[in-house]
């Protein structure tokens, strides 16, 4: 669809920034359109928990005036975005902190503001404390979940309630909702984006990253938020690439690895449609000039449980001082994580870290032979709300699946749609790169996206 025919709320960041830069679209006009969209459909989706309409309009007016003066800051200038509640925002600390203080703007939020983005507000996430809020619904079919824990991010971006969102991923929480809602979601390399101001679930597994409608938008957002942060001791000093350099349709000669043994290990829990569509996507890479090779990562079958052990132990350590409160008033998943963390002894935690090193070494060997890996992201499309219990996610954290291993190894991972189920729910492909090589996964994802154009489908919610 031509840009001129699209509703403004469904413009991609890439399209909107071109129009804003050339002054064919004003940030005020765009932000007004998005706020109207929120007003029209968020009553059905429940994505926003703290909408800052007034300040967003004020920021949009400031962006418009600045651009009119000839000071265009870059592609995020005047773009309306929203963030998962787990990130602190000045005046709106993460609610999951519950018993601890926020820090003002998280570094990733601050960087988005410095890039000129318009902050619409904060979005629902799974396991929020306090009075139970309505669960966000999937815009493709409101009887289905969005996936979590970046629930509001998934719903809001897919439905045009913002143009992009920051999510957080400890065991799949960017990729899950991106997959279920038909988005491009990028968990960059651990250390690439500062965790400062992100309420901790697990210090060594938490990744902050962009969720958007197309690959190029994740590149624009990553350009804005990537880089070393002295406030985050785990943030990396590796130089930051220009991620938009990846936006070219070219995978000729690229070697795509397929961890077939691992996919087979997960196959009994994976719907055949997912395996079929991901297989077809891998075949498309061949037709586009890539070479596909099967790879073996012998210890990958232990990576999910190792990720869970580290997750629950670091969660327990991070929440030891407020555990009594969490057990009294926290959500079921948070209480369960405390029990699981307590039940793990020091030898288990150290073993999980040793498995982590082994898995990292095995990935390093594989990446000497291939440029990226391709595999499913989910075992099926988004389930029905009524079929999902409060701690169901935890069962996925402790048996081999497609998300946790890449938190454990800290690898850059992009999910993009690769088809739809019969009832029009998105299915995703997952692409994984070697540390700090976001450019390759973005290039592979962009080439596939431009060839298949799944992003042109949109949910029909009105």
């Amino acid at each position, binding site marked *: 669809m031509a840009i001129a025919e699209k509703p403004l709320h469904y413009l991609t960041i890439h399209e909107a920034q071109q129009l804003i830069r050339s002054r064919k679209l004003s940030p005020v006009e765009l932000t007004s359109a998005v706020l109207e969209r929120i007003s029209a459909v968020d009553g059905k989706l429940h994505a926003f928990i703290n909408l800052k309409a007034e300040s967003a309009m004020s920021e949009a007016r400031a962006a418009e005036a600045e651009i009119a003066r000839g000071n265009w800051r870059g592609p995020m200038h005047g773009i309306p975005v929203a963030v998962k509640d787990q990130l602190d925002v000045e005046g709106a600390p993460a609610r999951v902190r519950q018993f601890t203080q926020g820090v003002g703007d998280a570094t990733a939020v601050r960087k988005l503001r410095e890039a000129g983005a318009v902050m619409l507000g904060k979005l629902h996430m799974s396991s929020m404390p306090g009075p139970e809020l309505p669960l966000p619904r999937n815009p493709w079919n409101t009887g289905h979940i969005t996936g979590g824990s970046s629930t509001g991010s998934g719903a809001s971006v897919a439905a045009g309630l913002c143009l992009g969102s920051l999510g957080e991923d400890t065991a799949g929480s960017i990729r899950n909702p991106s997959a279920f809602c038909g988005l491009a979601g990028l968990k960059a390399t651990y250390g690439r984006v500062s965790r400062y101001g992100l309420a901790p679930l697990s210090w060594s597994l938490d990744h902050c990253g962009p969720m958007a409608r197309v690959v190029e938008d994740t590149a624009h957002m990553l350009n804005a938020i990537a880089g070393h942060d002295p406030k985050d001791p785990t943030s990396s000093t590796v130089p930051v690439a220009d991620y938009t350099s990846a936006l070219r349709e070219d995978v000729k000669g690229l070697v795509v690895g397929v961890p077939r043994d691992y996919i087979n290990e997960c196959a009994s829990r994976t719907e055949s449609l997912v395996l079929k569509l991901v297989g077809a996507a891998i075949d498309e890479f061949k037709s586009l000039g890539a070479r596909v090779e099967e790879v073996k990562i012998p210890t990958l079958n232990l990576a999910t449980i190792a990720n869970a052990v580290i997750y629950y132990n670091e969660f327990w350590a991070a929440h030891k001082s407020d*555990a009594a409160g969490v057990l009294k008033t926290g959500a079921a998943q948070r209480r369960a994580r405390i029990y699981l963390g*307590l039940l793990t002894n020091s030898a288990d935690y150290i073993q999980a870290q040793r498995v982590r090193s082994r898995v990292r070494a095995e990935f390093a060997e594989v990446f000497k032979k291939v440029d990226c890996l391709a595999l499913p992201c989910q075992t099926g499309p988004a389930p029905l709300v009524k079929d999902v219990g409060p*701690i169901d996610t935890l069962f996925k954290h402790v048996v081999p699946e497609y998300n946790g291993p890449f938190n454990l190894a800290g690898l850059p991972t992009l999910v993009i749609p690769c088809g739809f189920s019969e009832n029009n729910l998105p299915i995703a492909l997952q692409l994984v790169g070697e540390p700090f090589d976001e450019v390759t996964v973005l290039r592979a994802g962009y080439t596939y996206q431009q060839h298949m154009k799944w992003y042109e489908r949109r949910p029909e919610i009105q």
Partner: protein
Amino acid sequence: MDKLIEQCLRALLAREGLEPKAGDLEQFAEIIELYVGNLKILHSVNLGAEELGPVFRPDWTGK
């Protein structure tokens, strides 16, 4: 829930001055038993004596 796991969890909670929320141990029995079972699998891999996890480095300042 497996009696030994339950006793162990209750003792660990008590050591921390905590108690489980009413109904939690019944509600979470299945995930707790699955997790504890899978911890054993984690130890099934044969790692070398010098295959370490991330280690302390004296030049790391945390800044």
